[in-house]
């Protein structure tokens, strides 16, 4: 594996603070800031509503996937119930807003806190179970939550679902994709920052230590049970927040949206993006959301050349479904470290060119 720290020459770090920055070089930091500024400007630059929808989708799914990556990628716990927590966040936020009139912008983080509590509860088995057994335990939590959504009329509206109100700030309604985009972007940037900071401080290291060698982690003074359960809690916070953003974006939450399929898709995102990597999560989520779109464009291209063939239209639907699965398999075989590793390889190739070693 190529060394992860390929620092360009001229980078002299003269203090420990400079050696623990989030960005390796001022250039990468500038790129990232420029990216956020570009995103801020995007709605004003005449991007179509459809593309904005995709970006918003990437946003809230990324937040939830980031939580899963802290749990699965960093702490090494497996979870097949992430969609349940995602859904709980959506319902909880709508519930807080409908029942108690909590403003939507406040209800979203509150819902995330509620989901954290739930995650800590469902995380208790993780204190004792590992591997496949834990997978089945979280699988159970997925079904418990799904069933809860369908039955708890007081909370989720049962089978008819719940209306999720629109957000408003200082009396102005945040309606439409253009305005909501900023809400999602704000939370995405915040959560990415919090997540990255977590991973470079004490508890983040403890998570990775538990993943890499739990026995020696324990001898280093890390309470395994505490950190395994805590990891579930933190991951649920992210899931709940992502879910709340999703609910208020659609304006309507229904139990059908949070099946095991979505849980698997979250896992797909972090596998494709790169386990344990914050940037990888963003890449993987974008990949998952954009892959069907790319296929659509590709099929559109074929259609333009070959004319409207019947099997193309039906084939597209299959291809969209199959492509995600195929992508996961191909990544597992050829790039198990995910897109983020591939990106590092490309960067180092570029830096070292023409000497590839």
């Amino acid at each position, binding site marked *: *594996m190529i*060394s*992860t*720290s390929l620092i360009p020459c001229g980078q002299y770090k003269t203090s*420990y*603070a400079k*050696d*623990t920055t989030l960005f390796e070089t001022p250039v990468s930091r500038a790129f990232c800031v420029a990216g956020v500024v570009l995103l801020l400007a995007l709605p004003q630059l005449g991007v179509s509503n459809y593309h904005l929808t995709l970006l918003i989708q990437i946003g809230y799914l990324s937040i939830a996937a980031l939580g899963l990556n802290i749990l699965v990628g960093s702490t090494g716990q497996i979870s097949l119930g992430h969609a349940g927590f995602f859904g709980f966040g959506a319902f909880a936020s709508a519930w807080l807003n409908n029942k108690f009139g909590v403003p939507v912008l406040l209800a979203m983080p509150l819902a995330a806190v509620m989901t954290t509590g739930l995650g800590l509860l469902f995380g208790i088995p993780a204190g004792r179970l590992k591997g496949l057994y834990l997978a089945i335990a979280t699988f159970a939590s997925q079904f418990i939550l799904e069933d809860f959504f369908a039955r708890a009329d007081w909370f989720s509206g049962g089978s008819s679902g719940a209306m999720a109100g629109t957000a408003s700030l200082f009396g102005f309604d945040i309606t439409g994709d253009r305005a909501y985009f900023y809400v999602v972007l704000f939370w995405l940037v915040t959560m990415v920052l*919090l*997540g990255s*900071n*977590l991973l*470079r*401080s*004490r*508890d*983040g*290291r*403890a998570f*990775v*230590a538990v*993943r*890499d*060698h739990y*026995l*020696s*982690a*324990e*001898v*280093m*003074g*890390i*309470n*395994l049970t505490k950190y395994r359960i*805590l990891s579930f809690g*933190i991951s649920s916070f992210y899931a709940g927040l992502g879910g709340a953003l999703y609910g208020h974006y659609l304006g309507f939450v229904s139990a059908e949206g949070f099946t095991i399929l979505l849980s698997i898709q979250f896992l797909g995102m972090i596998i494709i993006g790169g386990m*344990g990597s914050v940037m990888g999560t963003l890449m993987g989520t974008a990949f998952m959301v954009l892959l069907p779109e790319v296929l659509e464009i590709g099929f559109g291209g074929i259609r333009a050349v070959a004319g409207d063939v019947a099997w193309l239209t039906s084939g597209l639907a299959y291809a969209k479904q199959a492509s995600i699965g195929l992508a996961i398999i191909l990544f597992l075989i050829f790039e198990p470290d995910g897109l983020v590793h591939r990106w590092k390889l490309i960067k180092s190739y570029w830096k070292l060119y023409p000497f590839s070693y």
Partner: protein
Amino acid sequence: MAAATPVLEVRNVSLGFGGVRALTEVSFHVNKGELFSIIGPNGAGKTSMLNCISGRYTPTAGRVFLEGRDVTPLSPNQRATLGIGRTFQNLALFGHMSVLDNIMVGRHHLLKNNFLTGSVYWGGAQSEELRHRRKVEDIIDFLEIPHIRKAHAGTLPYGLRKRVELARAMAVEPKIILLDEPMAGMNLEEKEDMARYIVDLNEEWGMTVVMIEHDMGVVMDISHRVIVLEFGRKIADGLPDEVMNNERVKVAYLGVEDDEGPQAGAVA
């Protein structure tokens, strides 16, 4: 020194796994500032003994005291917090973390920032992290591993991994540090380096060391006191020279001809 409470006291510790008796009523104590070695043939229960001290195993009988405090019922992480650090016989580094992070994990119980303050980072957590980074750098300097600071621990060669593991155990700032075969599988040069680190650790850093080691030359040269285990029982305890000349130890280590057996056993 003799009057003070020993840093570590093991009192009548027995350990059984089903029908196997790994340890039988072993007692010893380690004084502050001592470099103490446990030796014995393979399967004698040396690592089991360390595991009883570090908390991986709970003894079936007997107690373990750290500075007079009974730590027998405590879990490994609680004992680490109280001041027991250790390395492992089979490497147990966090393979996907950098060397620096590996050592920083050792300071887990000394750091105060948690997932909330750590996530916010700026204000508090950062300055704390940097303060501890400075301490970690001292250890890195001492063990001469600054060149691999940022390397992933899993990619390092064996000898360096052993050193990183020692660094990680030192970062705990333990009252007593347990080294499980720190020199196993090393060549002569690496052994000499490691012996020097252990002596310096003891003399310069003032750490109390308990070491399991098979290389008799090293053990006899650097240890202050040695105990010998055989089949889970303590058969000798004393200065290196005394132990070396003990007949039972000779039998345990070198073995005897069949007809000499009872004779040699009778001497001890």
